[in-house]
């Protein structure tokens, strides 16, 4: 054994840190730390809060109540109604938006003025939700609203108001006011579906379309067998995103109906807003918030899964 032994130089503190955190991880650290402070900490705080009955007056102490806040929800009719309305809201909004969005995207795909149409169509998305609310309550107004006038004139609207009518549509659907809110959401977010579907359509393999045409498939068959399967994952992503935002934003409802009339538009997130910031029952609010969050986390898992799958067989 000849040769020189080199005494390994003792690593400096800085180098040891560098070793423990690879370069890419160090780049992520600031964001991770900031996010942990503003989201993880509040998250655990919320779980803690949901086990307490919070003090209403200064000087009082929070009382530990265990799972009572959760148990009480089962007796809370507004809560159960809110869950039901949230599901209605999501299902109706999404199906109308999907139908409109996919059809319009198919119609304008490859059209001469496609770009111009896209620019005009995407405008509603940039409008603040609260402005959407005011806009529609202006248009729905009984004495000077143009939409009210129009719907009355074509004889479509049977009731004398839109936003103050709790009358169920066709007997089993939610109220007229509820559909007023839905129409605002559809106006606001159909453009997103159009954009997403258009992006998906551009990536449908041309050779598959050609092959279908060669085999003599009609345009409906081609649509059904070639185009739609190819944009399926894109549609799924659109659906998940819309669900998130339906739960996320209550600004429009806040302006249009404030959950009324007779709670017929009080979807769960809005009920949560009332519990927390009108009645200031933070413990109960935290319990509802936690349930909503679990729901959303579940959806996010789904989103990541779809995202991953898409990466294996790239669509975009």
């Amino acid at each position, binding site marked *: 054994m000849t040769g020189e032994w080199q005494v390994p130089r003792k690593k400096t503190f800085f180098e040891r840190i560098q070793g423990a955190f690879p*370069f*890419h991880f160090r*780049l*992520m650290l600031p*964001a*991770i730390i900031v*996010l942990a402070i503003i*989201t993880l*900490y509040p*998250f655990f705080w919320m779980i803690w*809060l949901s086990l307490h009955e919070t003090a209403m007056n200064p000087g009082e102490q929070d009382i530990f109540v265990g799972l009572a806040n959760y148990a009480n929800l089962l007796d809370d009719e507004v809560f159960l109604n809110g869950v039901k309305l949230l599901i209605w809201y999501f299902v109706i909004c999404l199906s109308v938006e999907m139908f*409109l969005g996919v*059809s*319009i995207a198919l*119609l304008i795909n490859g059209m001469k003025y496609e770009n111009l*149409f896209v620019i005009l*169509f*995407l*405008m*509603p*998305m*940039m*409008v*603040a939700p*609260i*402005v959407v609310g*005011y*806009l*529609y309550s*202006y*248009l729905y107004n009984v*004495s*000077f*609203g*143009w939409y009210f006038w129009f719907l009355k004139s074509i004889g479509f609207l049977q009731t004398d108001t839109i936003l103050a009518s709790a009358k169920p549509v066709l007997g089993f659907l939610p109220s007229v006011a509820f559909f007023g809110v839905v129409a605002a959401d559809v106006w606001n977010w159909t453009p*997103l579906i159009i*954009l*997403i579907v*258009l992006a998906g359509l*551009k990536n449908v393999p041309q050779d598959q379309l050609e092959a279908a045409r060669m085999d003599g498939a009609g345009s409906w068959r081609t649509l059904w067998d070639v185009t739609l399967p190819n944009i399926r994952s894109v549609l799924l*992503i659109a659906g998940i*995103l819309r669900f998130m935002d339906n739960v996320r*934003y*209550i*600004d429009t409802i*806040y302006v249009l109906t404030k959950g009324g009339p007779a709670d017929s538009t009080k979807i769960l*997130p809005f009920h*949560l*807003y009332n519990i*927390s*910031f009108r009645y200031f029952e933070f413990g109960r609010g935290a319990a509802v*918030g936690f349930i*909503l*969050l679990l729901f959303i986390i579940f*959806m*996010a898992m789904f*989103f*990541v899964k779809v995202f991953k799958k898409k990466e294996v067989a790239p*669509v*975009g």
Partner: protein
Amino acid sequence: MDKTELVSRSQKRKKKILGTLTYIAVIVFLIWTITPLFVMVVSSFKDLREAFQIPQVGDWKGVIKFFQFTPTTRHYVELFTMEDFRPFIINSLIASISASIIAVILGSLAAYGLARGRIPGEEHISFWIISCRMAPVVAVMVPLYSIFSGLGLLEAYRWRNLLCLMLAYTTFSLPFAVWFLRSFFEDIPTEIEEAAKVDGCSNFRAFWDIILPLAKPGIVAGFILCMILSWNDFIFASVLGQQGAKTLPVATSELHSTVDIKWGRILASGTMLCVPMLTLGLLIKKYLVQGLTMGAVRQ
């Protein structure tokens, strides 16, 4: 006449009809999309008496009434003279721009790390980040409210409240920026950095001098999208910034009191809220799909 010619002629006619129908459908949809915005902008320039004029039910010719008015900028002027909206606009700008800057700076670092590095638990980190973006606003606000009020940040001081808003907006802007920019960095081929490293660049140099300039359009688009998200926010601002730092959406909502609704001013202020974001949105139209789907769908 040849039979095949007949067939092809009838097919041509069918095609023409279909084309016309398509245009009609698209234009009907277009009218429905544009009308609300058009009504808002036009009515904001009307005197209230004229803005409230609509025809009798069923009187189709009365639509003309919509266009009969003498334009006035009264409501806009009132927003600055009688309501003093200037500080609210400034609050909105400060809160949304500062949150977006934080989001874009920290976001692009993290996004690059996520896109390139092989980090243990990377999946969990990215999942956690995206669930922050998707969390319902109210659910995020409940704990934030109680934490901030414990720290005394909710008292009626302008800068404290602005700090609350900035932090609150970062909860959704930062995750958004990370996911969006990650998809952007992934589209840049790794060979570029490898070549730079062969030439003796350090990891950081390669990122800073070579990758960042390449990703500039994405970073700009990310900034604008973050800004639109925060600028349009109402619920956070109404609860956390209510006392000292009213933003434009909150101020707009206060024009609607229990006593009366100042429609003229609401429409004017709504127009002011939308027009800047519409312009910005159109500037980054190319990245809109990628942005709004957090990188899941690319154009």
